[in-house]
């Protein structure tokens, strides 16, 4: 009697890492692959057969509805930031994901666009010169200038490869911040930046409300994604990918490698600059610190998370990361949803069969209560601290151990947690499952005690962790495809 696939826990298709000479493609094609039974399989089949354009249209439609669902201005701002990050990740994807060039100065293009719009479309330069243009004049100027800037920054890529190019572009990015901070303070505003920038005006309308900026950005994002998709399936896209694969062979196959690299820098620069102009218009002010290296790392994290080399991946990574960090980490309750939600999700995905999952969860809960009781018996003040507000936390009060002076204990706990996580990765099998229980509990305690109180640091920690975990566990990101590399 054949085993019912719904109750077996073995995964349905034999997954094999792609490697040279192994014809996994034939094994994967439609007739051979088993889809999950029932409606899930039908949905997967439909999704695979659907073209790229319908998917874009559906995503755009969803996006257009969002402003009607969100209730307040703050949420709209989160949405705008998410769209901005997605757009930036898209631009970065051109040089990093497609052409394989590590551009660590990308943030400078974003800043260039923002400052460009700030200078051209405000009164910053008005008293001495007559420069105060409307958006439909500034934007094209900025786009062209950004393209030229991209060419200039890309020029060293003729002679430098890999790491050296990364260093150079990183320093270019740093130089931009130094430049805007220190040079020509009367014109560029110095550390105080430029204020009172125009909103975007077009066809008699001014974009003032967050809602209108949201839709504008959404349109910009959809158009950019469409343009890049068309580019990807043309000679330019093939040339970029060929240059990433093997620059020497590409040169031998009539591809002008240097010119192609410059084009990648240029296009990326234009996308970033456009994002920058919208940023400047919506924020009304720009400061040098808006374009510092940590933000660049955020864009990289978004691209890596979503999947470098894939348009959908870049957008998904940008949206996801921005919503997670901006949206959830602002208030303790929501941050709590995020934290526990992500952990639960990871456990559900990684721990099979479901019996094991339930066992671990039950054990963690029990462990927690036991530890709490013991610690409470030893010292009342050790559990007197308040886990942060929100309905989850009040229930947790009797479960986590949060001392009244949470800082020192929390710090020690954090370091111990790091060691436990590392240990967790090293061990395997049953030891790992057992070790999971105290690790989870400690994570909850450290979260409630320390991390929730320091949202900005937690945010950066999360970004760093994402980069490390992604590169080790799933370098192709969520939507990317696994690559074969000849090192």
């Amino acid at each position, binding site marked *: 009697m054949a085993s019912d696939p719904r109750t077996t826990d073995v995964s349905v298709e034999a997954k094999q890492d792609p490697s040279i*000479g192994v014809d996994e493609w034939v094994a994967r094609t439609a007739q051979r692959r088993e889809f999950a039974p029932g409606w899930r399989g039908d949905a997967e089949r439909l999704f695979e057969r659907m073209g790229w354009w319908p998917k874009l249209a559906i995503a755009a439609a969803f996006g257009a509805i969002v402003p009607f669902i969100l209730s307040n201005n703050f949420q709209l701002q989160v949405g705008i930031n998410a769209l901005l990050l997605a757009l930036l990740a898209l631009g970065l994807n051109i040089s990093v994901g497609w052409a394989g060039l590590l551009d660590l100065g990308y943030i400078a293009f974003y800043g260039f666009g923002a400052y460009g719009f700030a200078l051209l479309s405000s009164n910053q330069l008005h008293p001495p010169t007559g420069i105060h243009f409307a958006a439909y004049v500034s934007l094209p100027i900025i786009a062209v200038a950004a393209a030229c800037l991209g060419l200039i920054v890309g020029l060293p890529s003729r002679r430098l490869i890999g790491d050296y190019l990364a260093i150079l572009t990183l320093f270019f990015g740093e130089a931009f911040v130094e430049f805007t901070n220190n040079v020509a303070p009367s014109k560029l505003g110095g550390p105080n930046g430029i204020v009172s920038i125009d909103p975007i005006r077009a066809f008699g309308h001014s974009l003032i409300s967050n809602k209108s900026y949201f839709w504008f950005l959404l349109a910009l994002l959809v158009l950019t994604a469409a343009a890049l998709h*068309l580019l990807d399936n043309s*000679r330019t896209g*093939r*040339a970029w990918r060929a240059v990433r694969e093997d620059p020497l*062979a*590409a040169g031998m*196959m*009539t591809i*002008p490698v240097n010119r192609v690299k410059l084009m990648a820098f240029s296009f990326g620069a234009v996308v970033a600059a456009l994002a920058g102009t919208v940023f400047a218009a919506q924020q009304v002010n720009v400061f040098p610190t808006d374009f510092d290296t940590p933000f660049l790392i955020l864009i990289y994290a978004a691209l890596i998370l979503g999947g470098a080399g894939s348009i959908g991946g870049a957008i998904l990574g940008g949206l996801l990361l921005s919503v997670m960090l901006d949206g959830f980490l602002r208030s303790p309750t929501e941050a709590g949803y995020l934290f526990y939600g992500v952990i639960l999700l990871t456990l559900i995905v990684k721990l099979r069969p479901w019996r094991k999952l339930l066992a671990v969860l039950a054990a963690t809960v029990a462990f927690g209560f036991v530890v709490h009781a013991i610690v409470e018996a030893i010292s009342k003040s050790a559990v007197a601290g308040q886990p942060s507000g929100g309905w989850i936390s009040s229930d947790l009060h009797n479960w986590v151990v949060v001392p009244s002076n949470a800082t020192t204990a929390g710090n020690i706990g954090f370091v111990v947690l790091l060691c436990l996580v590392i240990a967790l990765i090293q061990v395997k099998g049953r030891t790992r499952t057992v070790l999971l229980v105290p690790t989870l509990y400690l994570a909850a305690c450290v979260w409630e005690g320390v991390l929730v109180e320091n949202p900005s640091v937690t945010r950066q920690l999360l970004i760093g962790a994402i980069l490390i975990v992604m590169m080790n566990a799933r370098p192709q990101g969520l939507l990317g495809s696994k690559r074969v590399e000849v090192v």
Partner: protein
Amino acid sequence: MATPAPPVLELDKLSLSFGGLKALTDLDLIVSEREIVSVIGPNGAGKTSVFNVITGVYEPTEGEVRFLGESIGGKAPHQITRKGIARTFQSLRLFLNMSVVENVMAATYGNTKAMPWESILRLPRARREEREVRQTAEEVLSFFGQRLAGYRWGQPAYSLSYANRRRLEIARALATRPKLLLLDEPAAGMNPNETHEVTELIGRLRDELGLAILVIEHDMHVVEGISDRVIALDHGVKITEGTFAEVASHPAVVEAYLGRDPEALVQD
């Protein structure tokens, strides 16, 4: 009587040195249309260096490289390939993560002109070129019969078998519409059946496409089967040239490959 067309490839007293190391010394070589010339010699004789100089990876230290009468020494690789020279590599250099058909289509870049914005807006020239590129790819891949047939086109290049990857590399080189084809050890690592197929294939390339072909090869069966002329190199110097029979029995060639006759050594 009209002057004969210049040979497709002419190396004139070509020398290549890296500091004190002389990779090639005073090399003369001619390849004409519809001709297959094989270069043989022990490892380290400088054979791949010849290819590298021709394709612009290295600049000749002395002497000239002429393609269809025009001197190409010192030009950039992509310029040289656009003029009509294509090569394959000793250790395969495919675009592994791109599909079979994309590998071939990528090589048509130099023969197309559409600018990026034309591609984005799908203007007529871009659409026309895209159709032509697809057609070229189909033509070139069908040259290999069933081996790289339709169902394989969407397959990523890394999933092909070794012999198919070698064929794909030749297909990719053909997509650049070359007049001169440089094949670097096309039969390396192949079993007798595959070797036979490759030998036939190279002959067809000469006969059906009229190419001038320069081949580096170690397998003497292949060399015998395809060559119109054979050139033997050792330590960067040409030791002899002629038909296969003449070269294979030449004492200097035998010595280069096998060393001196031990009996002759004793007698000395």
